[in-house]
């Protein structure tokens, strides 16, 4: 066992973990932050995307111990301070960017990373950035539309609702 300390959604935490503990298992099982999902567990699907020091990573392909000293952001920390949905989350609701919702935490975290890097992405840039996030319900059109809308762009010409 080793001690890890990190700041998760703004809160400092310290825990003992086994070397083999994945970051996603640490978040879900030790911290009970179950909004980060495990879809494939083979780093294909992106349901487990969180931010480590501001960068999107697949939490199923990183050990908790490697986040020692890092700032970690998960879907639980994305809402506005008053508890209302943030711009990206609200856009997913407005544009029906989810059906079953399983992939949504990863989609929202990836979208947040994209818009931080590239505040006004083109539709092609959004689709390319979502390469590592799989959704089996929506066909992606409304996810792309939601992210474009969250960036403040006119989405009337993009894929029918």
């Amino acid at each position, binding site marked *: 066992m*080793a001690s890890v300390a990190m700041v998760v959604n703004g809160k400092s935490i310290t825990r003992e973990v*086994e*070397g*083999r503990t*994945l970051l996603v298992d640490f978040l879900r099982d030790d911290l009970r932050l179950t909004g980060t999902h495990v879809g494939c*567990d*083979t*780093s*294909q699907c*992106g349901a487990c*995307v969180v931010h*480590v020091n501001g*960068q*999107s*990573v*697949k939490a*199923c*392909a*990183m*050990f908790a*111990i*490697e986040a*020692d000293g890092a700032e970690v952001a998960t879907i639980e920390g994305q809402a506005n301070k008053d508890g209302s949905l943030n711009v990206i989350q609200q856009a997913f609701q407005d544009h029906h960017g989810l059906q079953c919702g399983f992939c949504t935490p990863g989609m929202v975290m*990836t979208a947040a*990373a*994209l818009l931080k890097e590239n505040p006004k992405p083109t539709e092609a840039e959004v689709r390319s*950035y979502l*390469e*590592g*996030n799989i959704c089996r319900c929506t066909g992606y059109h409304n996810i792309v539309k939601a992210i474009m809308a969250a960036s403040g762009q006119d989405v009337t010409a993009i894929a029918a609702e």
Partner: protein
Amino acid sequence: MYAFEIERPGTIADAVKALQSDGAQALGGGQTLIPTLKARLAAPDVLVSLSAIGEMQGVCLSDDGALCIGAATTHATVARDAAAHFAGLAHLASHIGDPAVRNRGTIGGSLANNDPAACYPAAVLGTGATIITNARQIAADDYFQGMFTTALDEGEVITEVRFPIPQKSHYMKFVQPASRFALVGVFVAKYADGVRVAVTGASEEGVFRWHEAEAALSADFSPKALDALSVDADGMIGDLHGTPDYRAHLVKVMTGRAVTAAT
């Protein structure tokens, strides 16, 4: 996953020391190794994470004009920091896997693994780069020794990769859409003394140089120079994604496109 110890040294010297123990293995970004551990295809007793070693991070220019990249530098960092100096390499790094994978995966990890469909081996062989380890310097032509096989000794760690910057270069990848690996990827680099062409994803022997194309492009750096050439399908990978003939054909097509797009 089997239980193992994990160490996180802060210096190359400490990492080399930790790797001396029985059953120890280096962990780069883990984007291949961690799924491999989950599938129980590898079961090291000790993992030595290289992610906390500051002296293995970053991109810089050496005094003799080479681009030096610390082995623990992520693909995302290479994509950003190499762009002003070596556009072909930055382009390659920016198309590996997906954004989250690029934020973790490292150049040293990719080269130590030497997956036959990985992108970086094509750039390293296609530029004649130098692999620097804790013990020695290895020329690219001596480093790659077949699928998942390299010149690295047990416990040897890649610390840096040094690229001679070409006048023009490009990497063209035909993506296997599920994995984002190269079904065929070709790196073309033009130097004052000739052109180098390296191919990944195609051969059962891993990354290789296409010498006939190098000669033709050294005489005339245009896609037309490839017209008379063909690639032998013998020894090419055949799987459900493409036959050996298909891959051999793609090698020529991707090489031509890389020449056209080279900047």
